[in-house]
């Protein structure tokens, strides 16, 4: 797992600011490892535990999708998590064939074993956007929090 972390604890009346950047280059097991880094980073920034649980889950689901559906031989997905003015932004850039993001994903039947990932992104974050692109797709998710 490649990681570049830049932190700033600048207090400008709007809360702490910081950025965590990672490449998800260790497959699905690497997503679990990266989730620990996300948790530690957000803890270090003073984000409340309840909020971290939601953001961590969104990150895991987004990271899994980006890794699982990556085109063979493509660049690994990258993740940027930033805090600014009481808001966390998670950006996942992937090299998958892309997909159509439904505006309001719904849960499948209770006995269906798959198909809850996109729902969880929307259930845990305030806003979710997916931008497919020729040179990579970008999933951007935002969540405001109160320290």
């Amino acid at each position: 797992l490649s990681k570049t972390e830049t932190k700033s604890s600048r207090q400008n009346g709007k809360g702490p600011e910081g950025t965590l950047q990672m490449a998800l280059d260790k497959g699905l097991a690497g997503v679990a490892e990266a989730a620990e880094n996300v948790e530690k980073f957000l803890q270090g920034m003073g984000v409340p535990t309840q909020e971290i649980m939601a953001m961590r889950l969104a990150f895991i689901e987004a990271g899994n999708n980006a890794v699982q559906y990556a085109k063979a031989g493509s660049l690994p997905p990258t993740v940027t998590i930033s805090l600014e003015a009481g808001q966390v932004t998670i950006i996942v850039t992937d090299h998958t064939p892309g997909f159509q993001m439904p505006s309001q994903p719904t849960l499948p039947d209770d006995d269906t074993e798959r198909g809850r990932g996109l729902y969880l992104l929307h259930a845990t974050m305030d806003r979710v956007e997916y931008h497919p692109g020729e040179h990579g797709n970008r999933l951007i998710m935002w969540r405001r929090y109160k320290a």
Partner: protein
Amino acid sequence: MVIQSNGKTLRVGGIQNLGAHSAGDFRDQVRAALGPGQKDIEVDLSQTSYLDSCGLGALIGLYKIASSREGKLRLLDPQPAVEQLLQLTRMHRVFEIVKN
């Protein structure tokens, strides 16, 4: 992961991660360990700090196996992050959750 047989119940514990990278193996191991006379499955989640939608899918798979034998899937002592996922997906209504 530790799997123990206790009469009609199969008990599974010692699970730290139940995510996309491990869910398939987890489900296969539990399924293989389930004896012909066993109908209930207990999964101790007290040490499980990582569960994602794929891990949840594995639990649903076990739930279906137990149901097909007229048994139950019981989840024991889920941690807060795991409970959050169960509630968000409304699977807390489906599984039997036991807290000590």
